[in-house]
């Protein structure tokens, strides 16, 4: 049996038990009436919901098929886990991530804080390293050991730079 909201009669989705001055008070409310009463249970930004809405749009459907060629995840996989696969995803999925970032960060989409001393020159090198590490994984998986050694040497060179 579904419990009705004690305020408006719609289906209640929120059930609260409060102890006020030793009296136990049970409340059954729908989301709308609960909001009006000032009762909120959503603590976190509903990330999944934001993404869901995004993917309903025409542009969103196109974005769903985007795939990062470095770490291999596509936008749908990100949506399921809520976690990105590598730093390069911020570039690959930039368009799709923008609305999400703006929702999560009060409209902001540009970093204004601290910058690591080594910033500038490292972005290019880091992306190169990412790509090489992914190639190394593939080379080992397909037993191309000579190629793997070459890639490993190149990684070592880049790491020292």
């Amino acid at each position: 049996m579904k419990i009705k909201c004690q305020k408006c009669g719609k289906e209640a989705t929120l059930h609260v038990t409060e102890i006020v001055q030793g009296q136990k008070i049970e409340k059954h409310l729908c989301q709308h009436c609960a909001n009006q009463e000032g009762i909120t249970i959503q603590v976190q930004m509903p990330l999944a919901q934001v993404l869901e809405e995004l993917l309903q749009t025409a542009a969103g459907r196109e974005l769903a098929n985007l795939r990062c060629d470095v770490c291999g995840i596509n936008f749908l996989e990100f949506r399921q886990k809520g976690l990105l696969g590598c730093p390069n995803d911020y570039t690959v999925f930039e368009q799709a991530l923008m609305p999400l970032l703006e929702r999560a960060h009060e409209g902001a989409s540009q970093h204004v804080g601290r910058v690591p001393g080594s910033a500038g020159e490292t972005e290019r090198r880091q992306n190169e390293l990412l790509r090489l590490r992914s190639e190394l994984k593939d080379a080992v998986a397909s037993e191309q050991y000579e190629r793997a050694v070459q890639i490993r040497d190149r990684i070592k060179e880049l790491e020292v730079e």
Partner: protein
Amino acid sequence: MSDLVVSSRVRLARNIGGMPFLSRCSDSQRSELASGLSQTLQGLALAEPMQYIDVESVDELERQMLVERHLISRNQAEAAGPRGVAFSTQETLAAMVNEEDHLRLQALRSGLQLEQCYDEVRHLDDLLEQHVSYAFSSRFGYLTACPTNVGTALRVSVMLHLPALKMTGDIEKALRAGRDMNLAVRGLYGEGTEALGDLFQVSNQSTLGRSEEQIITDFRDQIVPAFIDYETRSRELLLKTRRAALEDKVFRAWSVLRSARVMSAEEALYLLSHIRLGLSLQMLPGLTIELLNQLSLLTQPAHLQQLSGKRMNPSERGEYRAKLLRDTLGAIKGVG
């Protein structure tokens, strides 16, 4: 009344450039990260050197101890694969390796000490940066596995003790005001945990578009004073209109803690919260905040077993916990 800020924490998320984020790392990449970062962390020229615990190889009890001391997250304790934590002797500074991000740097101090926490964690960040190269973009700042942390990747949290707001029923209003300021409110052990013992962890959600200093200053000048003000007003109201009920809560908790024979961890937190309120309202001479904080930690399951020197099931723990509280608080004279 700033004693209602139990602790302050500042955390920075960092990832190593040129490496996939943790969920896409191969086993060997995870090991590489864990061994490289543990060596780097232990070798840093900090005033207090850090020791490293390999969380993968220690037993469950030790992991639980680290969680209870807020040195690692529950996620870090329950995850699999190479991972660990480095922390300073005083435990104010810690660095989790291979949690959701490659590195989670945190400074944790009792009371309201946000600037000190930020200075300490920033210093650690500066030192680390001389040895590793972070994933960073000029547009999005420090790149994190979850886009909700990107930018400064800074999370500021304060643990607030808000028993009077809970008693007057105004807690929901206060928490809603907090959410309107785009804050997250969680329980004692962070994400997904309940607000036990009237303890609420309030932290910023947005990390992009404002500098680290702005985020800290907001907390110091606006957010924390707002919560202190709500709670103080509730306490004043209670003292004026329901003094007997308030005192009854405090002294009832005091007697139960000094005489019970069996006590769960949850009940202990609940009762200790009431005597924390009594202490703050100067109703319990002889009791100190240090002792209270110590008891709050020692009555947690893993610490209790460590203290007793043996593994105990929940019912044995209940008896041992009651005895610890009885002996410690029973020794305090001249109250009530």
